[in-house]
């Protein structure tokens, strides 16, 4: 293989990695993150126990960097580059999938800003160690609640629609029927994440424990 051919495949590989990183690890982590935070809907003790365990995993910094920070930075920055190469025309061709194309870009930007702020307030700045009381203190502020709901909706939409894109772009869903099914699957994931995220945020805001019935 000539050097020119090898070089010309770089963008293919980067595009594919950008697409893959959105599902694994970032998408998978979003599901895990909503799962572990759902313990806030069970009880304060349970939440503190689970979040305490998560914050004391071995090799924490290396793990966070490898599974979260590097993939999120790559997915976002390379994603902005891909965005810069497209010119949306949803106004002149207002088809639904064309709006989804535009929304996928804007929700990506919102998610990027939200995640940066979220890391700053809950991971690096603020409380140092996240405990129920600290998060609840933040969530007492209605502006935090509003920002979290916007962030949760943007991330969930981006993941749900991204799963549909992934299925099409990796040749998993080929026929229109399969692509429609992949679209419904993505919608299901997106709506579920949105609902779970909003319930968790409201749980912190109102000190509400709807799943507390499990605790004996």
């Amino acid at each position, binding site marked *: *293989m000539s050097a020119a*051919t090898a070089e*010309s*495949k770089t*963008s*293919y*590989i980067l*595009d*594919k990695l950008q697409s893959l990183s959105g599902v694994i690890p970032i998408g998978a982590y979003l599901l895990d993150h909503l799962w572990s935070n759902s313990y806030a809907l069970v009880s304060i003790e349970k939440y503190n126990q689970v979040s305490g365990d998560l914050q004391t995993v071995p090799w924490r910094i290396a793990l966070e960097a490898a599974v979260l920070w590097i993939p999120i930075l790559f997915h976002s920055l390379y994603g902005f580059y*891909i965005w*810069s*190469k*497209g*010119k*949306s*025309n949803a106004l*002149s*061709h207002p*088809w639904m*999938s*064309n709006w*989804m*194309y535009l929304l996928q870009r804007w929700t990506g930007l919102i998610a990027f800003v939200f995640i940066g702020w979220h890391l700053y307030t809950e991971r690096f700045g603020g409380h140092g160690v996240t405990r129920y009381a600290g998060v609840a203190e933040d969530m007492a502020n209605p502006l935090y609640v509003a920002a979290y709901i916007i962030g949760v909706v943007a991330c969930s939409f981006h993941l749900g629609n991204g799963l*549909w*894109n992934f299925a*099409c*772009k*990796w*040749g*998993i*869903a*080929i*026929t*229109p029927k399969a*692509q429609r099914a992949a679209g419904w699957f993505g919608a299901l994931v997106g709506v579920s994440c949105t609902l779970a995220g909003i319930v968790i945020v409201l749980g912190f805001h109102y000190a509400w424990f709807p799943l507390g019935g499990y605790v004996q």
Partner: protein
Amino acid sequence: MAEKTFIVRIKRQQRADESVRWEEYELRYRPHMNVIICLRDIAERPFTRGGVESTPVSYDANCLEEVCGACAMLINGTARQACTALVDDLEKPIRLEPLTKFPLIRDLVVDRSKMFEDLKRTHCWIPIDGTYNIGEGPRMAPAVQEKGYPLARCITCGNCLEVCPKVNSNDSFVGAAIVSQVRLFNMHPTGAMHSAERLDALMGPGGIAECDNAQNCVKACPKGIPLTESLAAVNGQVLVHAVKSWLRGE
């Protein structure tokens, strides 16, 4: 009784680097007119609505039955063929503009040779001759023929490129039509012998990874080609080819 007329507005430009002017023509209505007839009426009597003498509008057309692809233009903002755009069905005044994703030559004529170059670059043909007779090819299963036929209806009009957000001056994306042709030729038993060359080409700059799934192409296709299906299918082919080549160190 006064004659029934309608207005056609046309975006005109002598050359790509010259200024744009919009001209309005008032044409005599007859039943079953299409946009090509409008342009021919103007050529016959090139006087604008204000009575100013102009020049016939340049446009491309050939078959007049939507099988050649030449007369693609923006009609009321929609990329479509002028020959099958019937005046009866169009909102008036009718607005005609050249396609925007290809270099302008004059008025409604654009240079679509990018598509031909990309068809060549992606090896979208089947070599049937050598320096000697290479004999008959393998037989093609009827089921494959049936899948291939709709793809073979592509007229390279460029409508799918026109509506694609990823086909623009920032990006070299080949567009859905070319990817769909790769699928067609890879489907053919003789064509499949060169599938690696096609897939390699689509892995390069402007290749299939540029598709961001806005799925406008399939809605703009005048021939009803399942372009999004072709994009997904070829995406899978390129991926498998890429992984195999990588594992084998090719």
